[in-house]
């Protein structure tokens, strides 16, 4: 479904990513791990369409990835993912409104009633049905991310991109969120790309784990070589040895 052929990304002399060659089938759950600044978020932004690739080709179902965000690729950021001026329900209803044509995306009458019903069902699924009239700033971090995920799924994306979505959450809440994400992934048959700092999280959630790292380093010019995917593991055959190798 997603195919990267010899993808490079550089800014002037600074190479961020080099020689990325991967294919991802529909329904995979790919987790991207690596140190800070190793290009995993850059790769996610390429999939999102906000960062153009410098060389090579990146295709979605045979077509080049569009160079702007679209409905087929949903996104949840670590923060700022929901609209602060809308209540929980309004946030989700707006997601339906945005999929309509028109200047405002406001819904009226039957359309609105239908959208509210759909939204309530989704909010119930993510456990926010008791907080529909609250504004995002009144929610906890975990609830806000649940809302962001619910909102992203309303557009029925084929691919869900998660950029360290649980990075700011407490460990206890993370476990709940993991269960929710796995649930939704199975139910909606999504292809998920998730950037995370947490290797354990990557192993636990993904069907496939990518480690981004720089295979070559020139000490005179640390920017000269970019990072690439140094490990591409199917997590079904995960082992402690793998984990140790990656940690090193």
């Amino acid at each position, binding site marked *: 479904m997603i195919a990267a052929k010899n993808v490079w990304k550089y800014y002037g002399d600074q190479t961020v990513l080099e020689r990325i060659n991967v294919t991802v089938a529909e329904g995979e759950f790919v987790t991207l791990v690596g140190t800070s600044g190793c290009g995993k978020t850059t790769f996610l932004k390429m999939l*999102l369409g*906000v960062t153009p690739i410098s060389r090579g080709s990146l295709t979605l179902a045979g077509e080049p990835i569009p160079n*702007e*965000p*679209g*409905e087929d*690729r*949903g*996104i949840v*950021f670590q*923060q*700022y*993912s*929901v*609209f*602060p*001026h809308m209540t929980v329900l309004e946030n989700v209803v*707006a*997601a339906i*409104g*945005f*999929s309509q*044509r*028109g*200047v*405002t*995306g*406001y819904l009226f009458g039957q359309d609105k009633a239908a959208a509210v019903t759909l939204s309530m069902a989704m909010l119930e699924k993510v456990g926010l049905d008791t907080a529909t009239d609250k*504004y*995002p*700033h*009144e929610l906890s971090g975990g609830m806000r991310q649940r809302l*962001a995920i619910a*909102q*992203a799924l*309303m*557009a029925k*994306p084929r691919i869900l991109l998660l950029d360290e979505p649980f990075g700011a959450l407490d460990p206890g809440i993370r476990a709940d969120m993991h269960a929710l994400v796995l649930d939704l992934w199975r139910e909606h048959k999504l292809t998920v790309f998730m950037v995370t700092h947490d290797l354990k999280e990557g192993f636990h959630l993904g069907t496939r784990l990518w480690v981004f790292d720089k295979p070559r380093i020139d000490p005179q010019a640390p920017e000269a070589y970019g990072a690439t995917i140094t490990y591409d593991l199917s997590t079904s055959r995960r082992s402690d040895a793998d984990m140790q190798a990656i940690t090193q």
Partner: protein
Amino acid sequence: MKRFVNLTPPSAGKWLLGLAPFVVLIIVYVLASQARLEINPADKLLPSFGSMKDAMVRMAFEPSKRTGDYLFWTDTFSSLKRLGTGIAIAAVLGLLIGILTGAIPLLSAAFSPLLTALSLIPCLALLPVLFIVLGLGELSKVVLIAIGVTPFIARDVQRRAREIPVEQLIKAQTLGANTAQIIVRVLLPQLMPKLINAVRLSLGAGWLFLIAAEAIASTDGLGYRIFLVRRYLSMEVIIPYVVWITVLAFLFDYLLRRISQRLYPWELAE
């Protein structure tokens, strides 16, 4: 002993502490006024509160001998109409220009330099031009306020629009929003409280332009009256008028703040 920077007034004393300078100022004024009036009962510089009251009763509650109007109220009404119209026009224009140049890079590239240049024009210097082109009537005064305040509001809204996290704009696009929907649903509502704030900040400049325009060419208005009675050294009219203008300015600021809090409860949390 705590450091001076760490000393805070008790909550009950805060009011009294804030009130004290006002009381002191009034007492100083009364004493100075009495001292001068004792030497010369016809002194006009520091009129007593009694003569100010008499003057205000005459202005506000007795019809003018020449026109039959209650001058204080017609002055207030005329000035507020000019200020309100000018500020309203500036707010609408400023919002439109600010949101479009803030959200759309192509428009920003085309018009931001012009906007910066326009905002640097000292617009009181344009007043003669306005009088020549638009005449001495209401229009030139309203236009002065509008063109004086619009660039400030536009630039403020533009900056605020750019401060909205890009994540929100990307998110809206992944939900299928088009440009108009992003502007109307994501940017506009979040910029409304910022607009009200910009209007609050620009009211001071608005009053300045209003009084300047009225002082030069007008037949009524608070600014006109102050400059008119200056010829007779009528401090007993000027001082209450200045206080009244201050009270009005405070009231508008307070009202706008309350409106913003009421309409945009989510704004407080940021």
